[in-house]
């Protein structure tokens, strides 16, 4: 009995000690705790908010105005301050970002549930659908094929997803309101236009059971057409971008330059 009491006392003190030492290094134990996180996608053009029907100028004297602005996001994951990665569950990890569904502030909210509690320092996501997911066929797609088809994000002449869908018109000194349709995706296994971006967060996103961080992601649509490296002319084969290897690759590369994280709210 005495032995048991002694063991108990030792264990108790060990427990207290271990707790104390944790407190000392300021580490809370987040094991098993999950919370929610919101990604807010905010489309803009340079220093303006994006608005349907508004005419925006491009670098080369061309201008454009859009009636549809959608893109696919997938494989969203986060890296915490210790370098650990949290991948949102695969089968639910595809999203359509559709400007038409934006709130009055022009934001499209993606609420991610059951995210591991941690202090995240960066977010990574893909633009489009990767080859691995294509190779699964219908497996794990649930209702997404239907959802994408309803959103006009699939082709009916081929079985691919559209990664981006920009519809509208463009004009220049010599052209007035010509059709502009940028429907770009991968083409089977022959052409892989999936791209990934990793954005560091200016302040940590602290996911807790009681705290839902909001990551405000700005997407500069101007850079789809005038990226830091490649500017395109609509009149030179870029007013209709569908499956051409060269033009779709340029749009895919430019799409991977449009995103930045403006700020993170930890509420």
């Amino acid at each position: 009995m005495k032995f048991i009491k002694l063991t108990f006392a030792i264990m108790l003190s060990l427990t207290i000690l271990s707790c104390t030492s944790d407190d000392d290094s300021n580490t809370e134990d987040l094991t098993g705790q999950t919370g929610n996180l919101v990604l807010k996608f905010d489309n803009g053009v340079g220093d303006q908010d994006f608005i349907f029907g508004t005419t925006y100028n491009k670098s080369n004297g061309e201008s454009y105005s859009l009636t549809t602005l959608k893109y696919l996001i997938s494989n969203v994951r986060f890296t915490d301050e210790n370098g650990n990665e949290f991948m949102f569950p695969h089968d639910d990890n595809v999203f359509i970002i559709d400007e038409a569904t934006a709130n009055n502030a022009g934001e499209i909210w993606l609420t991610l549930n059951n995210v591991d509690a941690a202090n995240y320092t960066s977010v990574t996501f893909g633009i489009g659908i990767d080859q691995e997911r294509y190779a699964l066929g219908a497996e794990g797609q649930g209702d997404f094929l239907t959802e994408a088809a309803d959103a006009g994000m699939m082709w009916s002449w081929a079985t691919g997803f559209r990664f981006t869908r920009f519809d509208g018109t463009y004009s220049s000194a010599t052209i007035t309101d010509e059709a502009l349709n940028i429907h770009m995706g991968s083409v089977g296994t022959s052409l892989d236009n999936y791209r990934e971006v990793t954005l560091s967060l200016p302040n940590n996103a602290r996911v807790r059971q009681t705290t839902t961080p909001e990551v405000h992601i700005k997407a500069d649509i101007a850079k789809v057409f005038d990226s830091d490296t490649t500017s395109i002319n609509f009149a030179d084969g870029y007013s209709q971008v569908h499956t051409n290897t060269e033009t779709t690759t340029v749009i895919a590369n430019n799409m991977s330059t449009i995103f930045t994280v403006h700020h993170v709210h930890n509420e």
Partner: protein
Amino acid sequence: MNKLIILCIAITIWSCSKNTDFDEIYQPIPVTVEVPANFPEMTYNLDNNPVTEDGIALGKKLFFDGRLSANNSIPCAFCHEQAFAFTHHGHTVSHGVDGNVGKRNAQPIQNMAFQREFMWDGASSHLDLQPIIPITSDLEMGETLSNVIQKLQTDNEYKKLFRRAFEDGNINSENMLKALSQFMIVMISSNSKYDKYVRQEDNVTLTAIEQDGLNTFTAKCTSCHATDLFTDESYRNNGLPVNPQLNDLGRFDILENPDDLYKFKVPSLRNIEVTYPYMHDGRFSTLEAVLNFYNQGMVDNGNVDPSLLRTDGSYGISLTAYEKTSIIAFLKTLTDYEFLNDERFAEYE
């Protein structure tokens, strides 16, 4: 009070037993998909979609169901009839809803689990996703995926069949497409006279003319019609004069690559005897016409496959009258009567 409790329990038990009716639960009976000894490896990954008896049954019902189309009357089987190796009997190009006419000849559905890409131009690279093309094409079934799913969801028979075929029992596009794939995966044609001859089964031998045809075929055709699937799955321009009415650009549509102009997928030749008419637009109604074309009808449309260039600078495959006759005799040994009459694939068993 006690009586009331007993009554409640009785009702509960009764309702339980009704819900777990044998008809309505997921009790998968796995189906082993055998790869014929003379076939290449299967490309379809069965781990992602294990084939079961109930999955095949659901796929079959969907295949023959006109509700997959906008006017509820054009099922997959409309253009894919079993007696013709699941092609559209006699039609050059097929017609769909609202009297719309397509621009290509319906291809046979056979040995799909062994193919990497689908359609004449390779527009689909996964069997699961292929049906989306005919279902949503205005020229074919003209329907939307969500409408199809809604129609199925209101049907009690489908509720039962989806529950039996899939663990989650959901009537959604994933499960619908998986069931269609399961039905197509087991549609394997591998028991023609030729198959039995190469596998040395049942003492089957070829006649002298069939053997001559096989020899000529091996010498002059197998660089494209390779393996016992009789296709290397490449896309090639075989020098058909372009039909200006259709102006079908072929594989060019997929990648907008000028090198792909007028290229079409090399078709399998299995059951070729019954899949007339031939070529992507069904322009030839007999095998004789096809071989006459290869011998003497090709034109230089600017992008003809170099393997078809003859030493005299013209395009074609030189064939004597006897070579043509014997090749046709050989091609008829590829007719698989077991497949064409297999009740597992028949609308009415």
